[in-house]
């Protein structure tokens, strides 16, 4: 497998596309490039931008998305474009597909549709892994994952993310070949002679006494310990609903709740989306009734430790086989908490995989991955505040 990464921060998106491709192509000696993963900040999301890449690449499948920030071996970029070109080895197969207009249909069905499209191109191959990108503005993406799992099977390794939108533009874009889409999800199905390792960690630590969800529906929690759910936030921050709402962005980023999962090393995080006037709380991801929850707190050291652990787990998953590239889905909330130290995560990942291993990533608002991929028996969870590191090799 040959992999090349190119980056550009040129203002003009056509120039940027040319520059990034030129740089990425330098690492590929084979004639055939099988597919390209394109991550860009939102300013680049223009049809001509993809058409330029497509024109320059020829018949190569392009998948990707826009995000608040993108990552490469050179660090995070708040304005830029990252292109990863992949020329697969023999006996490795892939298929790419997209489902659009998700808000006009059942999300579960959209998940099934995407899975069917991905599977339709890979009927006779030994499928190994699916990587999904989803518009971060789509709600209830857990249903999308369920829809995918209904078709793939619950234990099929599914890794992905909902992309983080730019707070100003409030738009996310998905890329497939020459077109850009909103309200969509796209993915790649990989199979054949392929290996991968996965690490998912967040690093937030529980604080305060455990509580129980006594009333909830999907991602809305009505009662905690038989009291209005908002009380937990009111007590912890000594503020009433209007003040909490004012600071919601910060509270959501830094103080999620954690769902205790028996036997797991970390709590499953759920970060707050909104506080309703009736005192119920809406989270990114489902919170089942009777879940034991804790208030969670993150610190730079603990989340960087988590990055280290995730990278290490992803490497271990490769069982010392050669790693051809690494994909990183990094939560926007980590981005916010780390502030100016955001590139330390990349340093840690590079320490683990080596500086020459091609790495690309993007800022996400939700991450999808099994808690422990090595067991091959886990279904994918929807994570918040997590870093998902996927190492892929032959």
């Amino acid at each position, binding site marked *: 497998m040959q992999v090349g990464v190119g980056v550009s921060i040129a*203002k003009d998106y056509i120039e940027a596309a040319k520059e990034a491709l030129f740089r990425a192509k330098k690492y590929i000696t084979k004639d055939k490039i099988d597919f390209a993963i394109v991550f860009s900040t939102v300013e680049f999301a223009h049809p001509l931008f993809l058409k330029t890449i497509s024109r320059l690449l020829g018949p190569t499948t392009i998948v990707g998305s826009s995000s608040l920030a993108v990552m490469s071996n050179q660090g995070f970029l*708040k*304005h830029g474009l990252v292109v990863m070109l992949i020329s697969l080895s023999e006996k490795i197969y892939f298929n790419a597909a997209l489902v659009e207009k998700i808000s006009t249909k059942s999300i579960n069905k959209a998940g099934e549709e995407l899975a069917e499209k991905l599977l339709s191109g890979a009927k006779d191959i030994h499928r190994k892994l699916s990587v999904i990108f989803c518009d971060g503005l789509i709600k209830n993406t857990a249903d999308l994952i369920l829809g995918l799992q209904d078709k793939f099977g619950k234990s099929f390794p599914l890794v992905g993310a909902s992309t983080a939108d730019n*707070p*100003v533009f409030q738009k996310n874009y998905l890329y497939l070949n020459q077109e850009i889409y909103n309200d969509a999800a796209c993915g790649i199905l990989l199979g054949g002679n392929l290996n991968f390792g996965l690490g998912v960690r967040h690093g937030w630590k529980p*604080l*305060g*006494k455990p509580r129980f969800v006594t009333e909830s529906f999907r991602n809305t929690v009505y009662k905690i310990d038989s009291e209005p759910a908002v009380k937990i936030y009111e*007590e*912890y*921050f*000594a503020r009433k609903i209007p003040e909490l709402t004012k*600071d919601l*962005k*910060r*509270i959501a980023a*830094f*103080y999620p709740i954690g769902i205790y999962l028996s036997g797991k090393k970390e709590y499953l995080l759920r970060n707050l989306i909104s506080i309703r006037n009736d005192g119920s709380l809406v989270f990114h991801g489902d919170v089942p009734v009777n879940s034991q929850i804790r*208030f969670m*707190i993150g610190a730079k050291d603990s989340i960087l430790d988590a990055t280290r652990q995730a990278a290490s787990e992803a490497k271990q998953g490769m069982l010392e086989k050669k790693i051809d590239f690494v994909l990183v889905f990094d939560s926007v909330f980590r981005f*916010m*908490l780390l*502030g*100016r130290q955001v590139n330390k995560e990349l340093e840690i990942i590079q320490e683990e995989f080596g500086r020459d291993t091609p790495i690309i990533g993007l800022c996400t608002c939700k991450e999808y991955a099994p808690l422990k991929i090595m067991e091959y028996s886990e279904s994918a969870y929807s994570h918040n505040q997590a870093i998902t590191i996927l190492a892929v090799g032959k």
Partner: protein
Amino acid sequence: MLNILDIPFTPLDVAGILTIIFLGIALFLKIQRIKQLRLEVDKLNKSLEGMDEQSKLIIRTDMELNKIQEELDKKITSLYTLQELTRAISTTLEEPQIFKRIEVERLKEIGFEKALIFLYSEKDSRFNLYLNIGYVSEDVGIVKAFIEANGSQFLNLIKIQKTISSTSAVEGFIAKETINSLFTVSAFIFSVLLPKDGDKGFLFVGTENKDTLITEGDEELVTILTNQLGQSLENARLFEKTWNVQQELEKKVEERTRELALVIEGIKKISKRKTDFVSSVSHELRTPLTSIKGYAAILLAGKLGEVPLGVRERLEKINRHSDELVHMVNDMLDISRIESGREVMKIEPYDLKIISARAADLLSAQLKDKQIELSIDIPVNASEVLIDVNQIERVFINIVGNAIKFTPVAGKIFIRAVSIGAWIQVDIADTGSGIPEEAREAIFEEFYRVDSLINQQVKGTGLGLALVKNIIEAHGGKIWVKSKLGAGATFSFTLPVK
């Protein structure tokens, strides 16, 4: 009365009773244990509650710390960006370029994606747009119309020199909601641009991000930016002013040079005409003078009969004056030849001592008549010059001859030479009557004669020093005179060595 011992207990009964007693004790112990456990649970609960309270404190403190950290991070990032912006705008001296250096990427780094700069033109009495980031032309039109309609409010903002934002509105200024709606932003800052001279105005920055809350730090930052912009505008305007003045000056110098060239050209033409005229007149004079001299000589020789004494005397006068006239005509011809370049200097190395000795020899009779002492001091290192020997000899004869004329009896004349780099400077000094200051330059002009008593007694054509000057300049040298009335004069001139 029934005695318990009389009850016929079977062994099974006894066992049952013992079991009941045992169970009772066990129950009692359990109850005690439960009580104890409850106490411990209460204790643990209390401790958990205590920990929970501590957790709340930790979270509140953490929240504050995060806010401070965030603000600090933002400030550091903004300061870096401000530094870059400052560097960018201060490295240009062209006014339009200053605004172009504010790029959207840099603006985003300080938390805004929209910006406008308006400067108020006193001349046109209107606000003109100088920078637009993030607005399409249609939106700009709306904003511009709004600013024009509310011009007095914006002029007042410039007058009070205040930075205002969506969190620190000024009393009487346009409502925050109106600005948000018209400028399509959720948060904004207005900061005034105040260069010392010229048009003043304001910078508007805004963001659509609903989460943005403008802090004092943001206001300070934008104020620093506008101060820098104002400074750069000042520099650019000053530079433009200086540049314009310089251009004007250069233009004037060019004009004057052109005028001067024309004048010089005119003078050259006149001078040439004069030289030609003098040359032709001199030539024309020579023939009749030769005839006059010839006829006078014939008459004096008595070839046409005896000449009476009275006639002889007159004839001799005619002859003498004719000689003087011939001399004058020759000088004039020499001057015009040198001036017109027709007289080519035959340059050769020569010893000044020989020339000065020859001149002294030639003038020895006059020196002797007036008992004037001539001393010559030409050192070896200042004797060899590159000259036209005949011409320089005329220079010596002329200057020394003049000195003899204007030096009283028993006076002194000195000829000195000194080496100065590639030149030899010759000084010929006398102890004569001196030359008045106002005449020191004019004496080198043709036919100029100092208006003095002594000059009325001493004969002269007024051409000698003009000829001397022409000869020296034809050698590339210079000539000048220093004098003090009644204390003599020193004529100095330079001659080339190489």
